[in-house]
């Protein structure tokens, strides 16, 4: 497989502007002749479908939810970054670019990230024009807050519901186009395969989740905006329906999958309470603006009520280890910090897997009403789930899988290694490197959907000879047959175990062996166990019900079947990456007291140690067949603008 990132030449800051001019256009009168399929209706999908329809293309949009407004972007709480520099605290496009590259631990492409920073300001303008009710100051202008990994305020927010408000903005734009007949919307419809004609993406196979009908849809291009794969871990902060099926089935058709081992663990989630748990709930990172993270210094104190532990007996470990970023250290670092103190036996709560997030100082300083105004809905949510009042006692938090930086490989145009198939938002791999900074996912989803695809897709159309096949083409019949085969096999196994029990076992395995810390031994154990579990799944799963009806067990079975394969690729990727970077922490590769960076005080013992000489590349995996090893392709990462450095947040 040849990976050409198609990064334009020229100075970094001019690449996107110049490239927009160099790309070809499609005449407005011809646009309606091009059919586009958009899969997914989150921030990336809704914004792409709306924008392409506004331009005049013939758009169809698909989502598994009952309404496009429910996609999981809706759950983002904290905010969206943009280099507006409204607070006049030194922000610029270049600084947002630099923070994002550094936050990603120097494993993202410079050109993509710079473009993201450039369009960030336009996103805010667009959203405000749509009526997104961002928080404002009394003067009527927009308010900003700070977020992890940045020393300034560049995050725009709408109470604790920024994702919801941005998605409703994109959904309203999409709805306008649906109402005008420019977008055909297919809710409760799941994509089960992508169809290639002459090596190019020309359509998809879907299942109507209400009546079970399998349908063929043809187009000139397919745009996947299908989100991340965090649910491979079973417990994550993702919605329970989030899945990797669209992306993974496209991967099996030839789309390279890049850096699957880059998974983000969010430091502030509500700890697990028992085996019944179906998902984990995030408490926004914005809480770390006012909350202080601590555990007892002495593990003997862990069982005591937090109020009884004197100030001098508390270890505010983030403030201690990272004095300049303190509680706002980036997510990977804050998560590992929590794991470390819990591994030492200093964790709190019934399971010992928890740390305190304490607001008592902020309440003393600003008063309870001020804290309530800032985070009231989050405190309410915490109380509903745990039964505890966080105004009176500290929250207990623990890291959980939250976001996946890895995804389908795309070039600068966001086109995958299948020509004609584009991948946007969390589903691609391109902008966050090995770790994503808070408030950057919303930015990327909307940047891709509003501003990037609208420039690069026309270029693809203008460069290709127009050809939208009939859905009777043999490639469609073959793909449909394959999809039907999977469904009827799943329904005919009639085994003894539920889909959920398989998913839970797989997730636990992946979390233990390929979660917050990874090592060669554990990864090899996982790689031995996953194929066994997969075999058992296909022999012993019990999927009740029929094909031709609303059958949630069947939907779930198909998704878990894909996780059973995907998990193996994830572990292979983690195994081959013999370094630590961002969300990928290999215990064999960490700073020790022998390193000069630790001796000089630049960084701490136990921090992630990159190996730029060997691993400064994107690992793009190629599917080679069922139960076969994936083939590794490497795209070297070249840094011209920034110097690769050891990350330090001290």
């Amino acid at each position, binding site marked *: 497989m040849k990976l050409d990132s198609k990064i334009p030449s020229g100075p970094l800051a001019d690449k996107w502007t110049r490239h927009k001019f160099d790309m070809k256009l499609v005449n407005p009168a011809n646009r309606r002749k091009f059919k586009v399929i958009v899969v997914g209706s989150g921030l990336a999908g809704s914004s792409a479908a709306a924008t392409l329809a506004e331009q005049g293309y013939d758009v169809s949009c698909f989502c598994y939810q009952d309404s496009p407004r429910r996609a999981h972007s809706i759950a983002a709480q904290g905010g969206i970054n943009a280099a507006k520099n409204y607070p006049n605290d030194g922000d610029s496009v270049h600084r947002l670019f630099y923070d994002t590259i550094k936050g990603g631990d120097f494993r993202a492409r410079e050109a993509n990230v710079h473009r993201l920073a450039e369009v960030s300001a336009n996103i805010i303008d667009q959203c405000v024009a749509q009526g997104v009710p961002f928080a404002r100051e009394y003067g009527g202008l927009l308010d900003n807050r700070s977020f992890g990994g940045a020393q300034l305020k560049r995050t725009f927010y709408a109470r604790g519901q920024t994702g919801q408000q941005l998605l409703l903005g994109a959904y309203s734009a999409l709805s306008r186009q649906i109402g005008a007949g420019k977008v055909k919307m297919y809710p409760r419809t799941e994509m089960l395969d992508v169809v290639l004609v002459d090596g190019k993406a020309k359509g998809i196979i879907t299942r109507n989740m209400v009546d079970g009908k399998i349908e063929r849809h043809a187009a000139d291009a397919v745009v996947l905006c299908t989100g991340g794969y965090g649910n491979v871990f079973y417990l994550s902060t993702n919605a329970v329906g989030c899945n990797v099926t669209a992306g993974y089935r496209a991967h099996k058709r030839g789309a390279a999958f890049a850096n699957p081992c880059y998974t983000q663990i969010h430091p502030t989630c509500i700890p697990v309470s028992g085996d019944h748990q179906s998902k984990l709930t995030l408490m926004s990172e914005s809480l770390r603006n006012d909350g202080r993270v601590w555990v007892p210094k002495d593990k003997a104190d862990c069982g005591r009520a937090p109020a009884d532990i004197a100030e001098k007996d508390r270890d505010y470990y983030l403030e201690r280890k990272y004095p300049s970023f303190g509680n706002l250290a980036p997510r990977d670092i804050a998560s590992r910090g929590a794991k470390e103190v819990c591994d030492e036996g200093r964790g709190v709560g019934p399971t010992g897997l928890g740390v305190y997030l304490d607001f008592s100082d902020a309440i003393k300083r600003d008063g309870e009403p001020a804290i309530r105004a800032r985070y009231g809905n989050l405190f309410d949510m915490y109380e*509903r789930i745990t039964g505890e009042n966080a105004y009176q006692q500290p929250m207990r938090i623990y890291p959980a899988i939250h976001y996946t930086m890895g995804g389908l490989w795309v070039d600068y145009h966001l086109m995958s290694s299948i020509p004609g198939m584009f991948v946007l938002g969390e589903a691609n791999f391109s902008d966050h490197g090995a770790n994503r900074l808070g408030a950057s996912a919303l930015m990327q989803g909307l940047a891709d959907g509003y501003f990037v695809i609208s420039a690069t897709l026309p270029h693809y159309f203008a460069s290709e000879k127009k050809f939208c096949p009939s859905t009777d083409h043999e490639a469609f019949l073959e793909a449909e047959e394959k999809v039907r085969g999977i469904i009827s096999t799943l329904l005919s196994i009639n085994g003894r175990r539920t889909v959920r029990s398989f998913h839970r076992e797989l997730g636990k395995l992946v979390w233990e062996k390929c979660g917050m810390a990874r090592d060669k031994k554990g990864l090899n154990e996982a790689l031995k166990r996953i194929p066994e579990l997969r075999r058992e799944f296909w022999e012993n799963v019990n999927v009740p019900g029929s094909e031709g009806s609303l059958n949630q067990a069947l939907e779930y079975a198909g998704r878990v079947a894909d996780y059973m394969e995907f998990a193996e690729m994830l572990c292979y990727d983690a195994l081959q990456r013999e370094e630590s970077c961002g969300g990928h922490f290999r215990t064999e590769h960490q700073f020790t007291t022998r390193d000069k960076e630790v001796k000089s005080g630049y960084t701490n013992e136990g921090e992630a140690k990159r190996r730029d000489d060997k691993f400064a590349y994107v690992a793009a995996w190629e599917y080679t067949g069922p139960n076969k090893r994936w083939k590794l392709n490497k795209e070297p990462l070249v840094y011209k603008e920034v110097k690769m450095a050891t990350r330090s947040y001290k």
Partner: protein
Amino acid sequence: MHLILKIWRQKNAEERGHFEVYQAEDVSEDMSFLEMLDVVNEKLISEDKEPIAFDSDCREGICGTCSMVINGDAHGGEKGTTACQLHMRKFKDGDTITIEPWRASAFPVLRDLVVDRTAFDRIIQAGGFVSVGTGGAPDANCTPIAKPIADLAMDAAQCIGCGACVAACKNASAMLFVSAKVSHLNLLPQGKPEQDRRVKNMVAQMDAEGFGGCTVTGSCEAVCPKEISLNFIAKMNRDYGMAILKG
């Protein structure tokens, strides 16, 4: 704890439904309501029975997917709480719990507790937007918006579109939903140019979908998981009246 569940079962939109009784054993108080149903479903599957179909997605109270009437209350009667955020510590050992789908002719049942709420999407498509295309938007700070207005618009914009307001209303009226959507945009300067046609078109679509009339009993406000205020209905009625007067 042990619970007795009376749950609405219905094969599809055409067939008649009925209640069935299930036993939920070993329910822990830390479980969410939907996790309790997950456990019941696991047991049904292992007995080769069809699990109970119900909608849910984010399970943190923001996507608006979950939708069930629990003991007569949409979302279970806990103030400002969706069904997915309802926890079992609110119930007692031995309780009998009745679980039904949203009941409204504009929300036909698809299966068991799953209903079709696309009527809400069609109302938005009729006018729940600002007609602005991508690109060319002025700088975000060009238009200052007084904080109280922005905050009020945000109060309305919090609506998660779950449909509990319809389920709670004796007339299955969608006024709280539509008024929240209309008010969010009509309050903001960005939404002003289209305020009259927005309210007229959205109300017309609401009526066309078969939602009932509003008699301001406030049952919608009582069950709304985002505690959307009845005041928005008053505001929408005013906007609607003004729009009709202007012709």
